[in-house]
């Protein structure tokens, strides 16, 4: 692996983290309307997956979408703008925190209906397969979503039609307050892949290199035309489910345990231990990312009042004749 790769991985994770930190700050300051779902602690999943994809591979993230959106290459200014509801946002301010589609970087945007993005992702793969385009599509979903029938139906469809889709399950142990051990009828979610005759693996979702390697392998398998693949990445969201969550359903010990497994700190330690980066280099990256994200947030804030008019909005209910 070249140093550039490690640098990429570090930068993506830092940007993702800093995006969430800034978002939380803006929310607390009352500058953003609505709610948000922060993905702090899950950066290795986001970066590991996106690094394994080509620019032309598509993703369909979840409600907890910021990190994937950053890592797939969207402009954080446009992301902040979206949360400010301004017309400079990825969805012109009509989407909000859970809807950040970005055609340019091959991100279909999320469904805010848990598990409903999964068939859409298979649809992208269906399109590729029909048109003999050798790209893949990634259905991203959480442990909670595995209880949705749509996920089952889609995995069956993807399997019988050998669609180029990667099922990427972020198992962060909870769906809101519901622990996956209470809600899921099997210990290892990836074991369900057998029902769909596809490979299924479970990886340490807090280890960016492990996620990357697993995804790389999956992408290769899929691009060889062998059909879908299932990856379960074990991770943890260190913040609450959304703005209002008091986290009564989990223990301080558990949180502390996972705090120690912070994907960024651990990766930084690895880089240091392996002598790939110096402390100064890492600090510099941390600083650069933070400053960058803050600047972009400020820029977005400065344009926050640019808003679609009612007429422009109503004109977007139906698509016109030609694209």
């Amino acid at each position, binding site marked *: 692996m070249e140093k550039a790769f490690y640098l990429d991985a570090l930068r993506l994770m830092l940007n993702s983290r800093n995006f969430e930190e800034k978002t939380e700050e803006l929310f607390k300051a009352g500058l953003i309307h609505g709610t948000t779902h922060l993905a702090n602690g899950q950066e290795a999943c986001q970066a590991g997956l996106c690094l394994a994809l080509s620019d032309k591979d598509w993703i*369909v993230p979840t409600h907890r979408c910021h990190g994937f959106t950053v890592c797939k290459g969207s402009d954080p200014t446009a992301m902040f703008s979206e949360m400010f509801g301004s017309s400079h*946002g*990825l*969805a*012109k*301010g*009509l*989407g909000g925190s859970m*809807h950040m*589609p*970005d*055609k340019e970087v091959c991100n*279909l*945007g999320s*469904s805010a*209906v848990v598990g*409903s993005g*999964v*068939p*859409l*992702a*298979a*649809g*992208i793969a*269906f*399109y590729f397969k*029909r048109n003999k385009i050798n790209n893949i*599509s990634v259905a991203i979903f959480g442990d909670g979503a595995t209880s949705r*029938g*749509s996920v*089952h*139906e*889609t995995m*069956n*469809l993807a399997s*019988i039609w050998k669609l180029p889709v990667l099922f990427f399950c972020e198992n962060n142990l909870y769906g809101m307050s519901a622990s996956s051990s209470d809600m899921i009828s099997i210990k290892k979610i990836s074991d369900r892949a057998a029902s769909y005759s596809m490979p299924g693996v479970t990886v340490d979702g807090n280890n960016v290199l492990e996620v990357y390697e697993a995804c790389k392998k999956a992408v290769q398998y899929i691009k060889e035309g062998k059909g879908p693949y299932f990856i379960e990445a074990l991770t943890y969201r260190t913040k609450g489910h959304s703005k209002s969550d008091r986290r009564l359903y989990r223990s301080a010990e558990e949180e502390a345990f996972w705090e120690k497994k912070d994907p960024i700190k651990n990766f930084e330690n690895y880089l240091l231990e392996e002598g790939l980066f110096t402390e100064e280099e890492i600090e510099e990256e941390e600083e650069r990312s933070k400053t960058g994200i803050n600047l972009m947030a400020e820029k977005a804030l400065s344009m926050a009042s640019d808003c679609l008019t009612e007429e422009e909005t109503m004109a*977007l*209910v*139906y*698509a*016109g*004749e*030609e*694209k």
Partner: protein
Amino acid sequence: MTTREAIRKAMADSMREDKNVVLLGEDVGVYGGCFKVTEGLVKEFPDQVINTPVSEEGFTGLAVGAAMMGLRPIVEIMYADFFTLIFDPIVNHAAKVHFMSGGAFNCPIVVRLPEGSGTGHGAQHTQSPEALFMNSNGLKMVAPSCPSDAYHLLRAAIKDNNPVLFFEHKLLYGNEGEISEEELPIGKAKVIREGSDLTIVSYSHAVKTAIRTAETLDEQGIDSTVIDLCTLKPLDTETIFKSVRKTGRVVIIQDPAAFGGIASEVCSMIVTDKETFSSLKASPVICGGKNSPVPFSKDLETRVIPSVDECVKSALKLF
């Protein structure tokens, strides 16, 4: 040509023109579809006609994703009653993605929904669910009543960049008719006959009832206009208003349950339009289906939709 054949021809012509048009559904291949609408298509278009498992939510969602990439899928839901399983991909996704993406994505998907009672299939195989989609924004809905309209509206639906629900009444499949040269765009109602005393508005299978009602009223010296809505969303209020302003009397006939139906929306459009309201000489009348699930028993099933007799009686009260 029958309506069945017209629908088939619309699909075939579209698939021939555009490889991105694909048909997905249960048993649409060799079996020819539950109502034989797709018979033979798989032979000419083996790559475009795709049999699916019994996964309505899954394959409709898949079609939505594919449509966002540029495919133009036609989804056949074997019986419209299974609309319950596609609400999420259609209402929460297809209908909203253009808007929610700030216009970045389109979702050109057509869903074909064979509907209607009269076949003895019981309450879960005889529904006409169009009204249950009415209040969802971003959708279009059509419901043709003759082969020509079926052909042109399906062609238009496939070309449309928005999700279109295409309601086809099972009892109309066998109806014969010529395919007109003239296209029928989405959003246009058709004036089937012009009369000066009464406006009868209807759509789909109930258009038959409307025409027979008009014919019966002829005998009583009442001269009716009959309007076939053709498109249910968006409604062609202009055509309706124009006629009602002329006749001052309106009867709206539909097969599905009266409460919360398309007829209620048509009626409310008419009376909330100031000028049209002022032209009314009598209160509008809705002749709708009974507010009950569809009974199996043949006799009861027949009477669940409004009869010509009932419609004539209601119309006569306006004079």
